[in-house]
């Protein structure tokens, strides 16, 4: 017999977002291990935001803006597509999107793991601050804009201006990159980096050869204002 608690079933067709989020917030403290199935999300915005418990949440369907925003500790699986800003400002835990994600996925995330099994639209990982993001498909333009810390692994292609104004985040892309943004350059892919990519792919449960990725990061030319580089700002 398993000691796991019975999963709670919450149907958004018959309930509302407020009561769902309120109930999930009540898990903070002693809700570790709780399992919830959330049905009929119907593209609603701000579902499962502000989690602060090590709960396991499964959302069955498509979600709107900011699903799992500011997540701390919870492991959230979205069995569908996600609207803009999925897992924005995540602190820890994990969020998995089984479908595609709209723009600004993982924006300003400070920790945890975001996995997108499909494609991610523009600005994936914008302003990321420590989060790890693994995208099995491709990412749109301006991804990792002003990315400060963390890793973005893209198994497909990257759109224009990847890593524009990037700080210390590390980008690994397997397919072609349309163009690199200001101050973003290709860097050597060492064994240590292949190992890191392997670890991130394994954690994400995504199959790809770590040896087939290229690495991109900051040239650090914009770190202190220099008039001779003013046209790059």
């Amino acid at each position: 017999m398993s000691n796991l608690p019975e999963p709670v079933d919450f149907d958004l067709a018959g309930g509302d977002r407020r009561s769902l989020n309120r109930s999930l917030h009540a898990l903070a403290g002693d809700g570790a291990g709780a399992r919830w199935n959330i049905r009929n999300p119907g593209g609603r915005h701000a579902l499962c935001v502000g989690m602060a418990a090590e709960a396991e949440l499964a959302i069955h369907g498509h979600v709107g803006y900011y699903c799992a925003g500011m997540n701390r500790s919870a492991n959230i699986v979205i069995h569908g597509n996600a609207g803009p800003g999925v897992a924005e400002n995540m602190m820890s835990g994990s969020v998995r999107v089984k479908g595609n994600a709209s723009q600004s996925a993982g924006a300003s995330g400070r920790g945890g793991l975001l996995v997108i099994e499909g494609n991610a639209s523009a600005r994936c990982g914008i302003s990321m601050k420590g989060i790890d993001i693994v995208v099995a498909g491709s990412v749109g333009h301006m991804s990792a804009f002003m990315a400060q810390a963390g890793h973005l692994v893209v198994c497909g292609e990257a759109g224009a201006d990847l890593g524009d104004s990037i700080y210390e985040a590390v980008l690994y892309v397997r397919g072609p990159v349309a163009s690199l943004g200001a101050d973003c350059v290709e860097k050597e892919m060492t064994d240590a980096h292949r190992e890191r990519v392997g670890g991130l792919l394994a954690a994400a449960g995504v199959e790809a050869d770590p040896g087939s990725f290229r690495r991109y990061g900051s040239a650090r030319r914009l770190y202190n204002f220099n008039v001779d580089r003013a046209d790059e700002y």
Partner: protein
Amino acid sequence: MSGAPPDRRWLRASASFPAPVIAEIHRAADEGVYDIRGFGAKRHLPTFDDLLLLGASMSRYPLEGYRERCETSVTIGTRFARRPLELAIPITIAGMSFGALGANAKRAIGMAASAMGTSTTTGDGGMSPEEREASKLLVYQVLPSRYGLDPDHLRACDAIEVVVGQGAKPGGGGMLLGQKITERIAGMRDLPVGIDQRSACRHPDWTGPDDLEIKIQELREITDWELPVYVKVGAARVGFDVALAVKAGADAVVVDGMQGGTAATQDIFIEHAGVPTLPAVRQAVEALQELGMHRKVQLIVSGGIRHGADVAKALALGADAVSLGTASLIALGCNRPDYVEDYHALGTEPGFCHHCHTGRCPVGITTQDADLETRLHPEQGARRLRNYLTTMTLELQTLARACGKSHVLNLEPEDLAAVTVEAAAMAQVPLAGTNWIPGR
């Protein structure tokens, strides 16, 4: 040829190229880069000085100064929040980052605001424990950079302020220069030590009012609809921006006029972008009135507020409260004639300093240098700021009583006259001695 100085009677300065303009062109030619500085606009602008309060006489009765009460309390966030902010005075402290300001300054501000029963505000870079501990009512800013944004801090604050823009640089991002980035500041912002920290001008996960509405819903959901959500805009297209903030679901709108200060921005931006606070208040009030939301969505005005008369005039035009940035730092000791040799080392004088961006603040306010910081004792700073806020409140009450008001929020445009045609047009109050309001 004689080397004698010229006869000064025949020296004629150019109106288009006066000495400061010539000096700036020389500087730009030498350095090839724009000037970045702190403080706010230094140019002459129409201000609340161009308005006068009409005291009572026969047609209205004044209240007795020392016997009749004149209330000052104000509630912010009555629209949706379950826990609106109850302020004892309509004077709050604006957002200033820990990073731009040192920890002692943040603590002093928190202590003074708490003693006065009013709120203070975090800034770019997040919430420091010192600040939370010292501040009874703390407004937590959500800025485009999202530096240090933490859901635990969101839950621990008393109100949330979504910053769309700032009066000193509407439409512009920010820059905390590398010289101010210590290990602690860098850690809070997830960046390396000693590099320039650029702040974006747009939020990373929303653009436009429709997205903002959803963003505000998210913030409310995270905080279980307990806290007021403010939206702060830099004064530019004020009428539209205020209306859109209301539509997006704000409990309160903060309008920051172009006299608002900054820790570091291009001088050209500070002096040439935005709209002065005076017309911005009126435009914001009109927008709220058109929507039937005046006094339902509270209006907080900032940018160059200096004394109780400024507060009284802003309230008379329809604001619910004001917010102080630069003036609160001056009360702490900014530009005070102490450590004069250190002002000189920065190439300035007390009274002229705008060198917050250097990190070498002579009086220990806008610095992260441990030695300089000791020059500001939190208790002493708090005492000064408290005295200043007390003085402002007394001034405000004095003027409100003289206008016959038992609550400062009862001040109204009819209590005002303008001394310049410009101010009459901007504030839409009559030119003094006439019934004429330009444009009507």
